């Protein structure tokens, strides 16, 4: 099936199989590998992207169902003002080790900061409970997001 969508601000058209997930579409067809695939069944959050402004598990979305939608992956958020602050705070707070979960963490952190003003650590922990990190123990990630929220207010 032919689908056309807006990917990181540019129009793209591809022929896809109905069973193709958005995650596979982004990585395999479009070569955008910032989106990582962990569990592939919605439990780990590594593949989270933005569809129509909403945080979306790209392993739980079919590419065909995204026909006509606007999609942003981490690659397309380089100059995003919230992402700029998050990137700096993740660096300053040592919020990553191996980096596998980081793209999903950053997308979700941005979503949290766009919805909630200056979230406290408890709120961030609840909001982040769908993102799994196996290195940091989360403390430094939560710290970075809280700090970014305070900086942005």
């Amino acid at each position, binding site marked *: *099936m032919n689908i056309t969508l807006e990917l990181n601000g540019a129009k793209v058209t591809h022929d896809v199989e109905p*069973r193709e997930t958005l995650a*596979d579409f982004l990585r395999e067809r479009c070569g955008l590998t910032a989106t990582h695939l962990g569990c*592939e069944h*919605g439990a780990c959050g590594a593949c989270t992207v933005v569809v129509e402004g909403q*945080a979306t598990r790209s392993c739980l979305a079919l590419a065909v*169902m995204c026909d006509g939608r606007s999609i942003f992956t981490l690659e397309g958020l380089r100059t995003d003002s919230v992402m700029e602050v998050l990137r700096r705070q993740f660096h300053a707070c040592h919020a990553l080790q191996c980096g596998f979960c980081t793209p999903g963490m950053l997308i979700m952190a941005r979503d949290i900061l766009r919805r909630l003003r200056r979230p406290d650590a408890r709120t961030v922990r609840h909001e982040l409970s769908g993102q799994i990190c196996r290195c940091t123990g989360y403390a430094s990630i939560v710290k970075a997001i809280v700090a970014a929220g305070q900086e942005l207010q």
Partner: protein
Amino acid sequence: MKSAPFEYVRPRTVAEASAALAQDGIAASAIAGGQSLIPMLNLRVALTDLLVDISRLEELKAVRETSGGLELGALTTHAAIEDGKVPDLFGGLMRRVAGQISYRAVRNYGTIGGSVAFADPAADWPPCLIALGTRVRVRGPKGARSEPVAEFVRGAYSTSLAPGEIIVGFDIPRPPAPLRWGFAKVARKSGAFAESIAVATARAAESSVVLAGASLHARLLPSASKHVAASNGSEEALRAAIASDLDAIASTADAYQRRLHTATVLKAVREMRAQR
């Protein structure tokens, strides 16, 4: 990991979708948010020949507040309810339930109609909707019908939906007085399906205590509901009422599960009573 191949159609009306789903000789599945169906297809625990995408059907998105209550379209997402984007006639109960379903990225897609149609024994919406006295509206090849959610959900992953039938929406009656409610949920980790969910509601002399996770589908607890409606009663008497309900609906529950369900019901009832 990907699903076995299937065909995909995106009908423009409920009637077209219904016709696509009712075709003889093929396994067809409706997809709305897909947050349960897509992983099941990918893990190949579900198989389908045809996926009928109902996620863009405007007829399933209608939300209307009427004198009788709230008409809630089947495609209303958990996130829309969580964020208060639909009228809240129920003192925050639905917002509280919505905000604790899975994770935000899933709540952005998961729909209330999909949750009820899928009928997971531990799903969050059936106990809430039953405690609110909700009816589900369905349309299919034989026309439209409406049924209480309590009767619509028949068992684990089982409903009264016939081939080609689609949930259009829900009619949730307006509580006659400010609704008092309590909600308690125990899950091993936040966002996981619950092991026990209890919802208690009271309006005037009428009370409902509904429990999910204890049996194949969410059930009204008749003894506990009667106890709560009758009086402020002692906790011992309420515990005895819950015990007799559990004997009836969860006879195979072990000692831990009985303590767990008793605790969630007590917590929900206490929270409701504190709003007196």
